[in-house]
C-alpha cells in the first residue's frame, strides 16, 4: 500500500475548501440524479390506464422533476469546474516547486541525465497527475455517493430484487476486472513496439542523409518492414482489446437489465408489487452499476497518475547542493589572485580524474590550459565555478577558500564563456543584457563592439531587436559565440574563464573570436581552455594537462625549449 503521507505536500489549506466544495457538489448531483429517477418512475406510476391519470399530482411531480434536473445540471457543471480548477492550481504549484528544485540539484545530474527525460517530468508527468486528480475527483466522489444512495433506496424498495442487483453488479465487475488483467501485457508490448517505431523514425529517417551516403537504404528498409509488421500485429490486438470493453460493458448492462426485468417481474407478480417498483429497479440497477464501470475505467488512469507522481517525487528528493555555512564574502575590489592547493577531484567514485593539483595565478595573468581530450581541462573551470565540489584540498581566491563563500557571491565575480554556446529564444538585446540586470544599453553596445559582434548585429534588419530562436537560423555558430562572448563582457566580471568551442567555425569569424578573446583577457585574471595556438601564445602561463595532472607549466617559449609534451603537441601541426 502506498504511504499517503508522501503525497501530503501536494495539498495546502485552500485544498480543503476546494475538496469540500467538490464533495458537496458531488453529493447534490448524485442526490438530485437519483431522486429524479425516483420521480420519473413515480410519474410513470401515475399513468395507470385510460381515464386513469392524476394530472394534478403528475403536474406537481413533473415540476419538481424539472427543478431536480436543473439543480443537477448546475452542480455537475460546478463540480467539473471546481475539480479542474483544483487540479490546475495543484499542477501549477507542482510545476513551480519542480522548477525551484532545478536550481538546487548539482550540475552532475544534468550532465548525465537526458534532457528529454527531465522535460517529460515537467510536461507529461505533471499533466498525468492533473488529469488523474480532476477525473478521479469527479468519478470517485460522485460515484461513491451514487452507489451508497442507490443501495439505500433499493433496499428500501425491495430487498430481494436488491440482492439480485448486487449479484449482477458483482458479476459485471468481475468480468471487467478479468479483461483488464488480460489486456495489461498486451498494452505493455504495444508501448514497446510504439517506442521501437518512434526510435526507428527519429534515428533512421532523421539521419536519412547518412544512410544514403552509406548505401544502407535497403538494409534499413527490411528492418523497418519487420518493425512495421510487428507493429501491425501488436497494435491491432491491443486496439481490439481496448475496444472490447465498451460493447462488453453494454452487453453486461443489457444482461443485468434483462435479469432484473425477468426475475424482478416474477418477484413482482409473486409478491404483488406495483409496476412502478420494477421500472424503478430497472433504472436504479443501471445507475448503481454505472459508477463501477467508470471507476474501473479510471483505474489505469489513476495508475499512470501515481507512476508519474512517483517520478516527480523522486526528482524532488534528489540530493541538493549544500549551501549552509557559506558565511564569508569576496571583497568588492578583488585582486584576483588564485591558488589551487592539493586539489583532488573525481566525477565517478574510485576513478580519480584530478589528483593533487597545485598552481597559483597572479592578478591579471592569462592562463592557458592545454592538453588532449579528457585531460580534465574543462573540469578545472567547473571546479573554480563550483559547478562541482572538490573532494580534497582547497581553491583560494585572494586567500579566501571558495568553499566558504556562497555560489552566488563567487559567481558574481567570475564570467565564463562556455564551450557550448547557449542563447535563449528572445531578442539579441535580451540575450546580451541577460548577464547584468543593472547595465545600460550603451554598455551593451560597448560590450558587443569589444566582442566584434556589433558590426554583424547592426547589419541585421532589426539590429539588436532581432528575435532569435532555435527554429530560425539567422545566426551562424560563430556569430552565436560572439554574442555569448559579448554577454560575458557585459557582466564585467573580475575573473574570466573562456572555454573555446571545438565546433568548426569559418576562418573569418574565428579570427574575430580570437581578437575578442585577446582584447578581454587584457588586464583581467583569465583562464582560457585553448584549442588554438594563437590564444596560447599570448598567455602568461601555460598549463599542460594530461590525465588530470599538470605535466608541464611555463610560457610558450619556455615550454618549446623544454622539448617535451607541449613541444610535440605544438609541432604536430607542422609535420
Amino acid at each position, binding site marked *: 500500500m502506498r504511504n499517503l503521507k508522501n503525497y501530503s505536500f501536494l495539498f495546502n489549506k485552500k485544498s480543503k475548501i476546494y475538496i469540500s466544495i467538490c464533495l458537496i457538489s458531488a453529493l447534490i448531483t448524485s442526490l438530485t440524479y437519483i431522486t429524479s429517477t425516483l420521480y420519473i418512475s413515480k410519474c410513470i406510476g401515475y399513468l395507470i390506464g385510460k381515464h386513469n391519470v392524476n394530472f394534478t399530482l403528475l403536474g406537481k411531480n413533473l415540476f419538481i422533476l424539472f427543478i431536480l434536473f436543473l439543480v443537477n445540471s448546475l452542480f455537475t457543471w460546478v463540480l467539473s469546474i471546481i475539480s479542474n480548477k483544483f487540479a490546475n492550481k495543484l499542477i501549477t504549484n507542482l510545476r513551480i516547486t519542480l522548477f525551484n528544485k532545478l536550481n538546487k540539484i548539482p550540475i552532475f545530474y544534468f550532465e548525465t541525465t537526458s534532457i528529454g527525460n527531465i522535460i517529460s517530468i515537467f510536461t507529461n508527468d505533471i499533466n498525468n497527475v492533473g488529469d488523474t486528480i480532476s477525473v478521479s475527483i469527479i468519478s470517485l466522489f460522485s460515484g461513491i455517493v451514487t452507489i451508497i444512495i442507490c443501495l439505500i433506496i433499493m433496499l428500501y424498495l425491495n430487498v430481494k430484487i436488491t440482492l439480485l442487483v448486487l449479484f449482477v453488479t458483482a458479476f459485471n465487475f468481475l468480468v471487467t476486472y478479468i479483461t483488464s488483467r488480460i489486456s495489461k501485457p498486451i498494452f505493455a508490448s504495444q508501448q514497446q513496439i510504439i517506442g521501437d517505431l518512434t526510435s526507428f523514425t527519429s534515428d533512421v529517417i532523421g539521419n536519412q542523409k547518412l544512410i544514403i551516403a552509406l*548505401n544502407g537504404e535497403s538494409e534499413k528498409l527490411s528492418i523497418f518492414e519487420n518493425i512495421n509488421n510487428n507493429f501491425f500485429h501488436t497494435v*491491432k490486438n491491443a486496439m481490439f482489446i481496448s475496444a472490447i470493453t465498451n460493447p462488453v460493458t453494454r*452487453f453486461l448492462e443489457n444482461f443485468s437489465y434483462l435479469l432484473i426485468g425477468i426475475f424482478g417481474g416474477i418477484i413482482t407478480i409473486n409478491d404483488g408489487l406495483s409496476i412502478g417498483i420494477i421500472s424503478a429497479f430497472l433504472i436504479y440497477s443501471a445507475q448503481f452499476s454505472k459508477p463501477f464501470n467508470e471507476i474501473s475505467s479510471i483505474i489505469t488512469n489513476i495508475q499512470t497518475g501515481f507512476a508519474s507522481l512517483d517520478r516527480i517525487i523522486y526528482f524532488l528528493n534528489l540530493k541538493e547542493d549544500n549551501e549552509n555555512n557559506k558565511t564569508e564574502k569576496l571583497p568588492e575590489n578583488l585582486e584576483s589572485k588564485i591558488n589551487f592547493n592539493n586539489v583532488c577531484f573525481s566525477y565517478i567514485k574510485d576513478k580519480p580524474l584530478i589528483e593533487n593539483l597545485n598552481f597559483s595565478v597572479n592578478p591579471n595573468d592569462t592562463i592557458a590550459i592545454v592538453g588532449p581530450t579528457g585531460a580534465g581541462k574543462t573540469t578545472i573551470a567547473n571546479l573554480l565555478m563550483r559547478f562541482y565540489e572538490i573532494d580534497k584540498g582547497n581553491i583560494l581566491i585572494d586567500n579566501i577558500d571558495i568553499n566558504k563563500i556562497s555560489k552566488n557571491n563567487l559567481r558574481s565575480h567570475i564570467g565564463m564563456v562556455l564551450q557550448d554556446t547557449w542563447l535563449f529564444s528572445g531578442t539579441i538585446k535580451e540575450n546580451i543584457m541577460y548577464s547584468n540586470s543593472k547595465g545600460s544599453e550603451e554598455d551593451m553596445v560597448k560590450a558587443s563592439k569589444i566582442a566584434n559582434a556589433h558590426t554583424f548585429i547592426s547589419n541585421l534588419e532589426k539590429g539588436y531587436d532581432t528575435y532569435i530562436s532555435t527554429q530560425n537560423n539567422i545566426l551562424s555558430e560563430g556569430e552565436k559565440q560572439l554574442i555569448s562572448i559579448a554577454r560575458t563582457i557585459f557582466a564585467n566580471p573580475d575573473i574570466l574563464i573562456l572555454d573555446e568551442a571545438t565546433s568548426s567555425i569559418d576562418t573569418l569569424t574565428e579570427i574575430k573570436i580570437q581578437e575578442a578573446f585577446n582584447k578581454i583577457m587584457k588586464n583581467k585574471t583569465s583562464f582560457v581552455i585553448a584549442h588554438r595556438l594563437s590564444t596560447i601564445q599570448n598567455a602568461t602561463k601555460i598549463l599542460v594537462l594530461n590525465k588530470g595532472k599538470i605535466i608541464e607549466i611555463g610560457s610558450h617559449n619556455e615550454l618549446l625549449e623544454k622539448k617535451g609534451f607541449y613541444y610535440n603537441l605544438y609541432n604536430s601541426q607542422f609535420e
Partner: protein
Amino acid sequence: MIQLIKNYIRPYTKNCILGALAKLVEAILELVSPILMAKIINFGIPNKDKSYIIQMGLSILLISTLGVISALYCQYSASVACVGIGGNIRLAIVKKINTFSYKNLDKFGTNTLNNILTSDINYIQDAIAKCIRLLSRTPFLCIGAIIMSFTINVQLTLIFLIMIPLISVVLIILMRLTSKLYSLSRKKLDELTLIINENLTGIKSIRSFRKFSFEKNKVSNKSIDLEISNNKVVFFSSLTSPLTSLIVNIGIIAVLYFGAIKVYNGHLLAGDILALSTYATKILNSLIVTANLINVFPKAFTASVRVNEILNEEPDLKFYDETKNIKTKNNDFTIEFKNVSFNLLENKILKDINFKLRKGETLGIIGVTGSGKTTLINLLQRFYDVTDGEILLYGNNIKNYSKKDLRNKFSIVQQKSILLSDTIKDNLTLGNKNVSEEEIISALKNADAFDFVIEKENNLNYKISEGANSFSGGQKQRLNLSRGFLKKAPILILDDSLSALDYKTDKKIMNNIKNNINNENLIIISQRVSSIMGADKILVLSETGDLVNIGSHDYLLKNCDIYKNIFNSQINLK
C-alpha cells in the same frame, strides 16, 4: 483523404465493409430490446404471465448476445483495417523517402518526416477506426430511434425532432468555443515547455550569470498564465455534458406530460413511455459520440494532405538500374569536374568549377563557411545533380552509374558525427556488412577509438543510446571515422571530420590513414590548414562559391592571398 485510403485499403477492403455492416446489425438489435422490455411491462406483468415474461426475456438475451457478437466482430475488423491501412501507408512513405535525394529531403526536413510517420498516420488510423465503429452507428441509431418512436407514437416523436437539432447546435457552439480556447492554452504550454527546455540546456550559463530567480519568475508567471487559460477552457468544456443532458431531460418531461395525455386517452401504455425515454437517452449518447468523432476528422484531413505531399513528391534524381557505358580502358583521372555550377533555391552555391584528380592523389578543400565545400562533394556523390557542367568518375559521367555502384565508390565521414541507437558494431558496419571482427578492431585502432571502446561494457556490442550521450564529441568523430574506414571504398572523403580532435590526435589519425588504409584517393575538407597542407592538390573556394585557386600548399602560399591569410591566422608564425 478518401483517395489516399482507397490506394492503400487492399487487402483490408473486406474488413472495412463487413465491420461497418456488423456495427449496423448491432445498432438494429440495440433498438429492438427496449420494445421487448416494454412488452414485459405492458403485458407480462399486468397479466401475471410468467411464461410470457421468460419468453420475452430469452428473446432479449438472444438479441443482446447477437449484438455483442457483431459488435466484437466490428471492433476486430476495424482494428485490423485501420492498423493495416496505416501500416501500408507508412511502408509506402518509407519506401518513397528512400528514393529521395538530399534536395527532396531538405524540402520536407526530418522533423516533418518523423511527424508524418508517427502522429499523422495515427490520426488517419484513428479516423478510419472511428468511421467503421461509429459513423455507421450514430446516424443509424438516431434515425432508428426516431423510427421506433414513430411506431410507438407519431406526435411524441416530434419532441425528439426538436431535441436533436437543439443538442447539435449546443454541441457545435461549445466545441468551436473550447477548441479555440484550447489551442490558445496549448500555445501557452508550448511556450512554457520551451522556457523549461532552455533552462535545462543552459543550466550552466544560467547559474554562472546567477539568473535563477529571474528564470523562476518567468516560469511562475507563465505557469499561472497557463492555469488561467486552462481554467477558461474548463469553464466552457464542462458545460457540454450538463447542458445537453438538461435538454434531454426536459425532453423526457415533455414525453411524460404529453405521454400522460395519450395514456389518459387510451392511445398508449406506461411501458411505451418508458421505451420512449430510453430512446431519448440513446439519442443523446450517440450525438455526444458524433461530436467527439467530428473532432478527429479535421486532424486526419490535414494529416492526409501532408502524407500525400510526400507520396506525390517526384524524386529529384533518376538512376539507372544498371551502370551504363563503362569504358573499360584505364583512365588516369579518378575525378574530373567540367564547368560545374550548382544553384539551390535560386542561390548560386558553386560557380564554374574545373579540376582533375589523378589516381592516388590527395585532394584538400578549404574555404569559409558557405563557400560550398560540402556541396562540392555532395555533387560528386550525386546527392544533388549539377545545374550545369558535368562530373566524370573514372572518365565516365556519374549519371551513367547505378545508385549502388556509384555510392560504393565513396566512403564519406560527414561533418556531423552521427551514431544510431544500435550497438557499436552495427554502427560501424552500417556501410559494409562483410567485415570481420579483426577488421573492425583495426579500423578502431586506426581511428584512435579502440581504447575507449574496450572500456565500454560489452565492447563492440555496447548499445548506444539515442543521441549517444555517453560519448564525447571527439569520440563520436572517431567512431564515425572507423565506420568510414570499414566501408573500404576507393575514395575516402573526410568532411571536416576531425574538428573536435586535438592537433596531436588529428596528426596521428592522418598518419594512420596514410599508412594503413587502402584507398585510391583521399579528399579532405577542413577549416584547418594543418589538416590539408599535405595534400597534392588544394582547392581554395571563396565565399561566393568560386574556385579561387588550386595547387599544392607551397604554390598557394606564394600565389593565393586568401590561402595565405587563412594560413597566417591559424599558424601565426612570427
